[in-house]
């Protein structure tokens, strides 16, 4: 069955450093991959989408890579801030497939 693995333990980093979150998936070949942010008591919020034809995508301080050979995506936040503290969800998606499968997420804590 399709499986998504994200760091189950929280990632603690110091303010100003780069946070790197990992997402590995097995048993399917997504055409693209989405990253969402979820704050406590709130619904997920879409951040970035990268397609299988793109190796890397950037948006402000965010950078996502997508390696279809390794079946892995890396999500980077540069110059991290305490406001970046949240849970980040990885969502590999097959082309035309409407039913998203969410990873359990990695909790990021950025300390001043």
């Amino acid at each position, binding site marked *: 069955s399709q499986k*998504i693995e994200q760091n189950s333990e929280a990632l603690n980093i110091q303010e100003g450093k780069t946070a790197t979150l990992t997402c590995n998936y097995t048993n399917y070949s997504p055409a693209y991959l989405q990253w969402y942010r979820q704050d406590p008591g709130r*619904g997920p919020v879409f951040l970035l989408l990268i397609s299988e034809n793109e190796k890397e995508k950037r948006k402000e301080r965010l950078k996502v890579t997508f390696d279809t050979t390794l079946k892995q995506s890396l999500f980077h936040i540069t110059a991290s801030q305490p406001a970046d503290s949240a849970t980040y969800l990885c969502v590999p998606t097959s082309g035309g497939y409407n039913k998203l499968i969410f990873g*359990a997420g990695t909790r990021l804590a950025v300390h001043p």
Partner: protein
Amino acid sequence: DAGITQSPRYKITETGRQVTLMCHQTWSHSYMFWYRQDLGHGLRLIYYSAAADITDKGEVPDGYVVSRSKTENFPLTLESATRSQTSVYFCASMVGAGQPQHFGDGTRLSIL
């Protein structure tokens, strides 16, 4: 304001009772989804709808019923609530296949 709203935000009920969770979106998005989120699990899809009067089962549909008579509304009903259905429920909408999903802020449901 445009967006997706869920009601109620919090609900406590007893086993065996019928409960309906409401979801309303103002974008006229074709797709709507219901998820549940439990500790240690990612979001799990309960039901989804590709358009008014078109619904389909997701990963965990047992014990739930949905309807979609209007594009903007997608209520979820627990016909006879069980303790295992205690969870946080999220509704989402999506303009089209392969696009990001937009989530409500969830309903926290406790079944005693």
